[in-house]
């Protein structure tokens, strides 16, 4: 248990450090939320000052931080000035939307990458490998943004799928099945972009790891015992090749809340991305801190989960 305990403590320290840094940087950025209001001649400066003190924005940084920590320990993440709602309920909805997108994309990407990578590795030296390397190189060099825009353009021209957003305007009026179809239709483009962004590197890693394992002696020994090719690939080689892939999977998990920011903004998907962007620009400080903390939490959990999986999968890491 010592190892897990250490990781958890380490994670908590990291969260604290991130929160401090976040506050610091948010403070460093000039201005505050109410600066916009100051420009409005109809609102008097006294009102602005009163609003500022009401929200405690005139307090020094350590005091504000201390109050924030106290309320977080009570479960209250603060208040959003722009949306006029508690940060927590806002985050929950937006994070849910983001997670819907990223979990589907991660699942699809890995489900394609593993069999494809294994198959390419088994055909090492052939045309399949050369084609795969060329294809992955291409998609690695094309920026995510370009892919998103190209797909959007095509969708707008052909009207095949909705161009952006998560639901249609008349979503609430639809029946249960129609609602599902509508969601699915909106899913396709953003998920495709995310999958195309992450797939090349996954395929390359799976292929590389498999090729290395397939050169090992125990694989030749298994062949020498008459074990079939498919069995060797998936039952013998893949479990050993899994080590570096598990670390990669941990990275996928870690990025579940943060990797889709650009896509969400471009596609108008109501997730954590656009929220964070808006809040950063308008100095909605508690939203920013809350969103960053949520992402950090996922990163830490992803890393710990990957390490746990590594121990479960590889018996050499354990000690009896």
């Amino acid at each position, binding site marked *: 248990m010592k190892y897990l305990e250490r990781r958890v403590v380490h994670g908590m320290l990291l969260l604290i450090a991130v929160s401090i840094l976040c506050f610091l940087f948010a403070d460093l950025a000039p201005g505050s939320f109410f600066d916009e209001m100051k420009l409005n001649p109809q609102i008097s400066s006294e009102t602005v000052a009163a609003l500022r003190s009401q929200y405690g924005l005139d307090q020094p940084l350590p005091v504000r931080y201390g109050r924030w920590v106290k309320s977080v320990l009570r479960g209250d993440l603060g208040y959003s000035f722009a949306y006029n709602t508690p940060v927590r309920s806002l985050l929950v909805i937006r994070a849910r939307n983001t997670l819907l997108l990223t979990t589907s994309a991660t699942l699809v990407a890995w489900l394609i990458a593993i069999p494809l990578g294994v198959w390419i590795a088994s055909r090492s030296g052939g045309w399949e490998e050369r084609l795969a390397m060329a294809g992955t190189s291409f998609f690695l060099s094309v920026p995510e943004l370009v892919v998103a825009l190209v797909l959007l353009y095509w969708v707008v021209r052909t009207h095949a799928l909705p161009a952006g957003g998560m639901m249609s305007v008349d979503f609430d009026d639809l029946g249960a099945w129609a609602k599902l179809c509508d969601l699915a239709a909106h899913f396709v483009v953003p998920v495709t972009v995310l999958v195309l962004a992450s797939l090349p590197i996954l395929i390359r890693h799976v292929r590389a790891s498999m090729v290395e394992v397939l050169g*090992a*002696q*125990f694989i*030749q*020994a*298994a*062949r*020498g*015992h*008459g*074990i*079939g090719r498919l*069995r060797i690939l998936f*039952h*013998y080689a893949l*479990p*050993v090749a899994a080590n570096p892939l598990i670390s990669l999977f941990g990275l996928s998990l870690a990025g579940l809340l943060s990797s889709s920011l650009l896509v969400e903004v471009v596609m108008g998907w109501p997730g954590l991305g656009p929220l964070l962007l808006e809040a950063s620009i308008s100095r909605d400080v508690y939203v920013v801190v809350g969103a960053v903390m949520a992402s950090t939490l996922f990163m830490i959990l992803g890393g710990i989960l990957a390490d746990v999986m590594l121990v479960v*999968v*590889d*018996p*050499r890491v354990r000690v*009896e």
Partner: protein
Amino acid sequence: MWTPSGTVTSGASALLSVQGLTVRYGGGRQSLAALSGVSFDLAAGEIVGIVGESGSGKSTLALSLLGLLPAKASREGSIQFQDQDLLRADESSWRAIRGARISMIFQEPGLALSPVMRVGDQIAEVIRAHRPGNGKSRKRECEAALSEVRLSDVDRICKAYPHQLSGGQLHRVAIAQAVVCRPEVIIADEATRSLDITLQSEIIDVLREVNRKSGSSLVFITHNPALLSGFADRVIVMYAGRIVEQGPVTQVFRRPLHPYTKGLLQLAPRYPGQEAITDGGRLPSIPGSLSDADRLTGGCVFEPRCSARTAICQSEFPAEITLEQDRRVSCFHHGN
């Protein structure tokens, strides 16, 4: 037990008959041959020792007998195994043969086993590949195989991972994997290399017992001829991809005919307790070493290092001569 039945030239009574096997890696007739014109027979139930150093082609021979040569390797000759020419067999025929009718004990069992699978499962996989049955029957057969190689605490070993077992235990597991499907031919490729002396003799005992109980033939490949006494029936001496001498072990060891065999037998480690070399003395050795240039010669490959060489050895290649008592040698000056 194998009994000499006179000359085994026709190969009709042999279980496995290799004729004129020539293997080249890297294609083209100019490339070096890993094996050149190798011919020998293996009768049912006999133990044949193949002695050779690095570069002798013994590993290539082992791979050929199991169909594990890389696709690019060119091959000539034939390997007759019960009315089938294995050299021309396709992959699906091979898969039915490997592990079930011809199986191999690989060098360094620590590396020949998957590090993330339990040992018992790995033996069961071999059974699963060749025979129908359920998990329970496989478990039983697996445990039977482990006790056959004289491992105690069979249950714990079945559940263990390779890194939890000692070197000796791993070697026995490798043997168990090779014998579990009762093959007719077992190939042991340097199965005792780098093992300490106690383990070496134990493993040889296990192999002897397996051969006696199951009647499977054993091809024991080694670089140390001393291991073959009291163990193998016949010996085949290889050098630079060719067979230079073969015959019954006792005959060859008592009266080696080829200069290389003579040199090799002088090197075999002596029992500690005999007189060691005195001050200023040196160990006997075969001078020089095999180089790629030697292999391309038109004459005898061993000639540069041979103490009995004459002019003819450089210009002509010595063909194989069959002498009495089923002894064969490729040398112009055999027996001198």
